[in-house]
């Protein structure tokens, strides 16, 4: 975090009275406050063992998903804006209702969920489903457990799980072939009824039909998929920022991707990848890392400080479980994609892992002492 503070201190004179960029002082001020000047420190912290406060924490996550948001606009068009608006409107309504009932202030907790939520949805999903899903996720996944910081499950993933089970057909039919123009779809609106909307299968579904999408396309993101999950490059860029600022813990990310990679490579080596029915054309293990929501889930979902374990050893185990379960679901069940379920399972186990790590440590201390 210090380097960011240094950068701000360095450019500050330019924006002060007499500086070259004085006219832009409000912008500078806003950015500075956004990053470093919390209005009030959170009392009931969502992440007890972390010195950051809630507001700055949330700001960092929002900055880090900007590349993915850009990718969503670029590949899938302006409709994504409507999805963001619906997401915030529906989610904040539920938050506000609970705040009124609890007589608490509305806290910043929803701002991250509200932007992550449309990123994990198929880009032409009906807007009412976008709203219903996030309302369900926030209500059942977060508020009923006591609100921000007390939830067991990642609310966005609870919402996605709900939609995947409740409306499987619409979810599968709402994927969109991304724009292959250089200009992208930055100024166009494409939804299920527009003529050039071709509902297209995701790379993982295609792989089941023995059509392998090129790894380079998967890396850049010009493939079908949930709005924010397609571009591996931009996810790594934003996720990297999140790791540098230490908002996300690198152990979780590394363990998830490493265990996924290792297990997939082992399956490829033993000819056991099932979702590709033709043996021998599996694509390299890195292809599978780029496919679907694994990277997005590893960087932005699994690292959620509220629902992931707090001890470092538990974070390794947590990541390994998520990566391994994703491989198992993708290859040995009826689902082509399993990141959502894998992370939710990880969320369930997280407190138990912490418990194990702490009790082992206490036992060791006792035997030493």
């Amino acid at each position: 975090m210090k380097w960011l503070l240094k950068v701000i201190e360095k450019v500050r004179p330019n924006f002060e009275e007499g500086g070259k960029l004085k006219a832009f002082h409000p912008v500078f001020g806003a950015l500075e406050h956004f990053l470093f000047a919390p209005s009030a420190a959170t009392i009931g912290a969502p992440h007890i063992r972390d010195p950051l406060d809630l507001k700055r924490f949330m700001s960092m996550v929002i900055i880090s998903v900007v590349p993915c948001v850009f990718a969503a606009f670029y590949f899938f068009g302006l409709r994504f804006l409507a999805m963001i608006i619906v997401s915030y409107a529906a989610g904040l309504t539920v938050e506000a209702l609970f705040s009124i009932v609890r007589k608490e202030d509305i806290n910043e907790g929803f701002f991250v969920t509200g932007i992550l939520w449309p990123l994990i949805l198929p880009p032409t999903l009906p807007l009412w489903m976008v709203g219903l899903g996030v309302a369900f996720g926030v209500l059942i996944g977060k508020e009923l457990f006591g609100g921000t910081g007390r939830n067991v499950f990642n609310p966005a993933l609870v919402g996605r799980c709900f939609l995947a089970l409740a409306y499987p057909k619409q979810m599968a039919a709402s994927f969109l072939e991304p724009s292959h123009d250089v200009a992208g779809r930055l100024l166009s609106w494409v939804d299920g009824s527009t003529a050039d909307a071709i509902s297209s299968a995701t790379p993982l579904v295609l792989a089941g039909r023995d059509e392998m999408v090129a790894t380079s396309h998967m890396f850049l993101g010009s493939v079908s998929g949930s709005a924010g999950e397609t571009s591996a490059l931009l996810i790594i860029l934003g996720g990297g920022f999140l790791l540098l600022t230490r908002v996300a813990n690198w152990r979780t990310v590394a363990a998830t991707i490493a265990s996924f990679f290792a297990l997939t490579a082992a399956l490829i080596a033993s000819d056991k990848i099932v979702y590709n029915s033709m043996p021998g054309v599996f694509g390299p293990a890195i292809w599978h890392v780029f496919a679907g929501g694994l990277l997005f889930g590893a960087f932005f979902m699994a690292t959620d400080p509220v629902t992931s374990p707090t001890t470092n050893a538990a974070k390794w185990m947590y990541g390994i479980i998520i990566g391994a379960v994703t491989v198992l679901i993708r290859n040995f069940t009826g689902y082509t994609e399993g990141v959502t379920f894998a992370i939710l399972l990880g969320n369930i186990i997280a407190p138990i892992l912490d418990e194990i790590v702490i009790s082992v440590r206490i036992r060791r201390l006792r035997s030493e002492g």
Partner: protein
Amino acid sequence: MADNQMVCATCQPKGLCGGKGLVTFKEGAWANNPLAIQVLGICSALAVTNRLENSLVMGAALIFVCVGSNLIVSILRKHTPHRIRMVAEVAIIATFVILFDQFLRAFYWDMSKQLGPYVGLIITNCIVMGRAEAFALQNPPIVSMVDGAANGFGYAVVLAIIGFFRELLGAGEILGHAVPGFSSWYTPNQLMILAPGAFFALGIVIGIFNMIKGPDPEGNK
């Protein structure tokens, strides 16, 4: 068993075991609702509530079995040796369950097929056995019948509520018929048909019951 020393698990602190008529009914159907308050017998509540029709038949079955078994257990309470009372209760309950099952098979074969093993499984339903143990063994026949009816009724109502919403939201229908002004635009939510939907529905119903009932005055949850 009039002189037995057993303590009633559900209503002993309130001393309502010997209560009469209306008090007993209110206690069983509302204050100690077997599903919403005591959370007993939820296996069947989760399994058969995907359609309202199934829920209603299941509720009726439970009322019948509860009333019948409570009556007989209560009549025989002074003649049943204490040590074998459970075996006797199971035999009595099983008799009524088989009666109902045979009735369904004879006259409502389709319904019988839909409910599958769950009618037979009423024998193991905690509510029936619980009422026989907790109430019928210590109370005269008529009050015992009222108690059985109250608990069966409480179970049936909750089941009907869950079945109503699961069928309405899961299939967009009520009792297999389209709802005017609703089914035409409604997109069925398949989660409500699946078992997880039943968990959510039951959880919400229990939550609402507890909200209406308010905190327990004695402070025990």
